[in-house]
């Protein structure tokens, strides 16, 4: 059955892609979506990135000097208070979604 606007769908959350709340492909007019990108800090060893980099070189993609593998999260928020949402997401990123010891984060709200 095709989901319609306002339906709440429980999307299976997986590591690296956390989805909360309504998922309809587009953001509802009375809700916001935070798009969060978490990357390993420059000083932190990223063996996954290194492996992807050598795989790229192996199949012929030359000229790639570095690859870092991180996480992308989409978080749906109720309401339209963008400033409040920005504050809440920033706090959540610092507190749980990223580990400031090893990761950097950035996000946008749309």
């Amino acid at each position, binding site marked *: 059955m095709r989901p319609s606007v306002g339906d709440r769908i429980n999307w299976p*959350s997986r*590591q690296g892609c*956390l989805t909360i709340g309504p998922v309809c492909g587009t953001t509802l007019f009375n809700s916001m979506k935070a798009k969060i990108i978490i990357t*390993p800090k420059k*000083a*932190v*060893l990223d*063996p*996954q990135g290194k*492996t992807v980099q050598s795989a790229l070189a192996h199949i012929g993609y030359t000229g790639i000097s570095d690859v870092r593998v991180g996480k992308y999260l989409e978080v749906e928020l109720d309401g339209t208070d963008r400033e409040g949402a920005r504050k809440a997401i920033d706090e959540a990123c610092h507190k*749980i*979604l990223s*580990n400031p*010891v*090893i990761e950097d984060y950035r996000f946008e709200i749309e």
Partner: protein
Amino acid sequence: MNVAVLQFPGSNCDQDVVHVVRNVLGHSARLLWHKQPSLGAVDTVVVPGGFAYGDYLRTGAIARFSPVMEAVQAFAANGGLVLGICNGFQILCEAGLLPGALIRNRSLQFHCEHIFLKTATADSPFTNRIPPDKLMRLPIAHGEGCYFADEATLARLKANNQILWRYVDAQGEATEAANPNGSLDSIAGICNEARNVAGLMPHPERASEAILGCADGRLVFESMIHAVTSKLEAKAA
């Protein structure tokens, strides 16, 4: 010694710790579900290994917000002994009870093998019964055991003698080849500045009886028992 062994959804070394404390060492241990808001009358907390909350998001990231962890924070702030083993070490780092973090193994492989461990200092409640030249042979089983801390934190760990264990080869040398996961400075275990909270990636509870091939892990628990009983004796005197 009265030990509380925490149980998160996904813990899988909890029963092993209880077995060693009760049946091998003859002390008391009980399991404590992570939803419990208090620890009750205990003098040691063990955060066991496993995959709490399926390691979702990051290892230990969700477990650290379980109600029992607030009680552990207060217990640790009061000087109570807390030991984190493997996933427990990851949880204590996430909770900020120990500095640094544990990231993916350098090889990207899950390592399940026996390693040699050298104890860097006997000056802690977790190492006081380990002879200075003793190489402990303990099993490891982890995918995220590469210890990382920034330069300032590493310098502080060294200055305060907080590095408790390093991975070494059979000759006791901390070589690159003997480092199973790429840990900074071959670090396998550390303690906090107050020396009452420690974590290590190897599993002493899986190597505390001769029938399992090695009983070196007992030394860690015996150190804790010694620390707790001498503290109680000092109080009584």
